[in-house]
Structure formats: C-alpha cells, structure tokens
C-alpha cells in the first residue's frame, strides 16, 4: 500500500489528461458569472439565434443564452456528482468500517443489504422514483447517495478486515483504544486509494444519471442541466442548431465523464500493482 497516489497519477498520461479536464470543468463552473454576462434562465424574445459575438453559442428555443447554460450546467453536474460522491463515501465508510469492527449479526445484515442493492439496477429505480416525485437537486443527491454507498461499503469492509489484523492496530487495542478511535485514527486513513476509486466511480455514475434523468425530462425543471439542454435540442435536430446546442452540451458531459474515468483508471493501478509499470498509459 506504500505507493504514492500522486506519483501514480502524475506518471500516467491519461491520468494527467483526466486531471486537466476536471480542473478545466471545475474552473468553468466556478467562473461562470465572469465568463458569461447572461443569466442562464433569463428568457428573451430572440430565440434560436445562431452563434454571434453577443451570444457565443446562440440562443435556445426560449431565447436563453446557450453558452451561459453550458457553464451553469457544469455547476449542476459537479454539484450532483460531488454531493453524491461525498455522501455515498461517508455512508460507505460508516457501514463498511462498522461492519468490519462489530462483526456478527450486524455484519451479516449489512452485507446482505449491500449485496441486494448491488444486483438492483440503480438507474431503473431512480427513474421510477423520479416519475413520481420530480426530485430537486437536494433530493436527487440524497436519493443517489442512498443507492450508491453499497459498493464502497463492501470494499471498505474487506480492506478494514485485513487492516484490523495488523500489528499496529493490535497494539493500539491493547493500549485501550476504543472501536471508534481505532476506526477513525488507524483504519480510515489507510483506506486512501480505495476510497478515491470508489468516490470517482460514484461521482461518475451520479453525473451520468443526473444528465440521463434530465434528458428523459424528469429532472428538476428549474435546474440548468446538460441533460435538459440535450433533451430540448433533440427536438430541433432537423435544424442545424445541433451544431452549437446539442453537441457542446453532449461533449461537455462526455468530457467530464472521460476525465473522471482517466483519473480513476490511474488510481486503480495503485490498488493493483500488477497493472503498473511498463509503458502502459
């Protein structure tokens, strides 16, 4: 486990490319108000304009500035992604570590639930729930997090079980450390790379599902989202507006997911050293 995560990502070309893409998307999202003078939800009478100096990517069917929507759409994607990632990770650590440390019946029950949720197709569940309650941002994050923590919990439990038997943890236990102290001081910090891979996996899936729901038209209608943009633009695919409306939204979404994939692939080689070395990207 003594492989530097930073070094590993730096050495991999795709890992670097992924980081650059992610930093770019985060920067666009953060600087959105400075990069566009338009409010992304402000409607105007000038609809379906082609790109021009004042509207870089033209306007959509209700006269909203598409470039501005693209920037604010990044905010939505990142918020959902990282919100779900963080929340899912917290739940995963909570259940994974506690199952490993407490063991017994509790462990059995938690793991049964985890297994059950892993075989249930998540997107289908989310679509069903969204069909009844059009979830807003907070509800969507909560819902996705509740369906996302199981993978992390399983991996974390396995890792915590093997860490539990290590010398320094035994030593700490004989000094009278409580279970909570053991978990927090000795087990969670050593889980680093695994947590990163699981985190990115959840983020990626959440970004994808948010866009997918919006694409189906069952997202939050008040939210500016790449999925909604594609949903609206698809109806006009017979016009040439797809060039500056549909494609930028789709490319932005795809690039974000590709960036996450690249970083997580580089991080995975930390977990499985057999995949390392050589001239492998």
């Amino acid at each position, binding site marked *: 486990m003594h492989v530097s995560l930073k070094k590993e990502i730096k050495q991999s070309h*795709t890992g670097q490319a992924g980081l650059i893409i992610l930093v770019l998307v985060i920067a666009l999202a953060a600087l959105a108000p400075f990069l566009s003078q338009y409010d992304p939800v402000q409607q105007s009478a000038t609809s379906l304009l082609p790109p021009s100096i004042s509207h870089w990517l033209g306007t959509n069917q209700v006269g909203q500035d598409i470039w501005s929507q693209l920037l604010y759409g990044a905010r939505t994607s990142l918020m959902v992604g990282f919100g779900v990632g963080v929340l899912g990770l917290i739940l995963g650590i909570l259940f994974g570590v506690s199952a490993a440390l407490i063991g017994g019946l509790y462990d059995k029950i938690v793991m*049964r*639930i985890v*297994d*059950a*949720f892993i*075989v*249930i*197709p998540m*997107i*289908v*569940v989310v*679509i*069903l*729930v969204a*069909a*009844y*309650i059009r979830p807003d941002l907070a509800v969507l994050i909560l819902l996705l997090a509740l369906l996302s923590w199981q993978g992390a919990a399983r991996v974390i439990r396995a890792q915590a079980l093997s860490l539990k038997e290590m010398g320094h943890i035994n030593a700490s236990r004989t000094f009278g450390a409580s279970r909570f102290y053991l978990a927090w001081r000795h087990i969670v910090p050593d889980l680093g790379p695994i947590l990163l891979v699981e985190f990115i996996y959840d983020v990626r899936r959440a970004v*994808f599902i948010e*866009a*997918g729901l919006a*694409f*189906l*038209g*069952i997202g939050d209608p008040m939210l500016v989202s790449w999925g909604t943009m*594609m949903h609206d633009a*698809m109806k006009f*695919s*017979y016009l040439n507006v*797809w060039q500056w409306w*549909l*494609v930028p939204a*789709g490319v932005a*979404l*795809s*690039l*974000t*997911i*590709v*960036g*996450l*994939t*690249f970083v997580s*692939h580089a991080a995975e080689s930390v977990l*499985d050293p*057999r*995949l390392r070395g*050589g*001239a*492998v*990207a």
Partner: protein
Amino acid sequence: MTGKRSLTTYGIAFLFILALNFFLPRMMPGDPLTAIYGDEALVAMTPALKAHLVARFALDQPLWQQFTAYISTLFRGDMGWSYFYNASVLKVILGSLPWTLLVVGTSLVLATLLGIELGIESGWRRGSRTDRALLTGLMSLNGFPDFFLGLVLLIVFGVLLGVAPLSGALTPYSGLSGLALVLDVLKHMALPVAALTAAYLAGGYLLTRNTMITVLKSPFMLTARAKGLSQKTLKYRHAGRNSMLPVLTMTGIWLGRVVTGALFVELVFAYPGVGQLAYQALLARDYPVIQGVFLMVAISVLIVNFAVDLLYPKLDPRVSYAR
C-alpha cells in the same frame, strides 16, 4: 464476488423492488387512485369504476391488506390495466418487448465478444502502440453517454449522410416481406445497436485486458511457453480463455446497464421498444405502465444475475473448491 450471493440476497432485492412499487404511489400526496392508475384513469372515472378500482387493490382496507392484495394480483400475472392504451399492462409491454430484446441482445453479444477479443489483443501486447491506442480510445468512448452516442450517430448517418433511417423499427406501410423485411429491420436497428455496443464495449475490454495481464504472469503460462506451444495457442487457448471468466460474471450487471441504456437509445431513435413505451408513459403519467416496465426490467436483471451466479462455479471449478 460470485458464488457468495445467496438466495436470501435475491430475496431481499426482490422484496425491495416490490415494496418500492407498492409504497411509492401510495405515499404520494393527493388521491392514491391517480397515483396508482394514472391520469388517464381519472378521465374515464365513473362511480362504478371507482368502486371497482378501490376494491381491486383493497384501498379501503388497512395497508397490510393492500399489500397482500397487490402481491396476489401480481402473482396471478396481472400487472394492471393501462387506461392510456386501454389494454392490460402485460399486453402493452409484450407488444414492444421483442424490439428491445432484439436490440439489447444483439448489442450485448457484440459488445461482449468484441470487448473480449480487443482485451486479449491489448493485454497480450501490453504497452505497445496498439494497446495504448485501444486503451485510451475505449476509455474515452466509455465516457460518452449512450444517448449522446446515439444522437451523434443519428446526426451523422441519418441527417448528414442520409444513409440510415431516422426513426422506427420498420418502414411503415411498406408491405415488405421475406428478405426485404429482414433487411429493413436490420437497417433500422443498425444505429441503435451501434450506439449501445460502442457504449458498453469498454467494460468487457478493460476487464479482459486487466485479467489478461495478470494471467500472462502466472506460472502456468511459463509452463505452456516451455512446452513450446505456438503463440496462437498461448494467446487464445491458455491466456484468453482464462481471461474470459470475469467477463461472464459481469454480464448480469451489464445486462442491467444495456437494458437501461436501451431505454435512452430507443428514445433517440424513436425505436418502438420498451424504452420508448416507458418514455411515453412518463409523459402521459401512465403509472401502471411505468410500474410494469420497472418491475419487468428489475426482475429480469435479478434473474440473469442469479443464473450467472449459479453457472459460474460450473465454468470455473476453482470457485466451488474455494468455498
């Protein structure tokens, strides 16, 4: 990972799916009749129909009896009545199921086979230019959401080049038969299948490549080399075959993804499968059909997963010894 999931696991998953389908409409604010039967039912509502609908799911009874009523109707194969189509949900779904099965089945087979083959090539020549190109290319492709891939294919081949049909599964009113009909179906399914295959190719590829790299380092490969076996035998019979096993395990999980992917892709191509049906139902708030599709997709994914779990130890005897 496999072999450990027991019947209990699937039981819990099954119960969760049933419970979600049962409680979700009943927890909605407002008249549960709307949430259960859809907007269209209200239009047709008469006092007699209302009494019938209430009695059907025992809506005037305590929650527990409602649940029993729900389960017992389900087990009779009765998935409800769609007031939008004025037909039973089962019939509505069965009508569009063949198209989805056709597209999903073809894509799953193509993506798996192609993924395994490319994974073997890539892992065998790890670090080479081919390997790096394949790895980067497929990982990037993996990031493209299936519906965006579909849209790009639709625009390029359908709109710009005009070589593929824009929507549907058949040319309407063409009266084709025989070979011409088969060709027409193939032509219509080419783009949806291409989009789904491209979106799910990377999964099998990455897994095969990773396993291939590990397998190539194992002692039995050294022995095989020492025996003087040909490169081809080493690559496919020894390393390749062993690298295929994990892919099989994942097929169950991928099936879930390809089916849901089909929901999105069918919408893009207006392909008349279950996805298109579900989308129309979402627009019309035809809740019985939404629930029916959900139930069918979720349960078929569970069944495939279970089948893979049962099959796996037979294919890889090491798993059953290890237990």
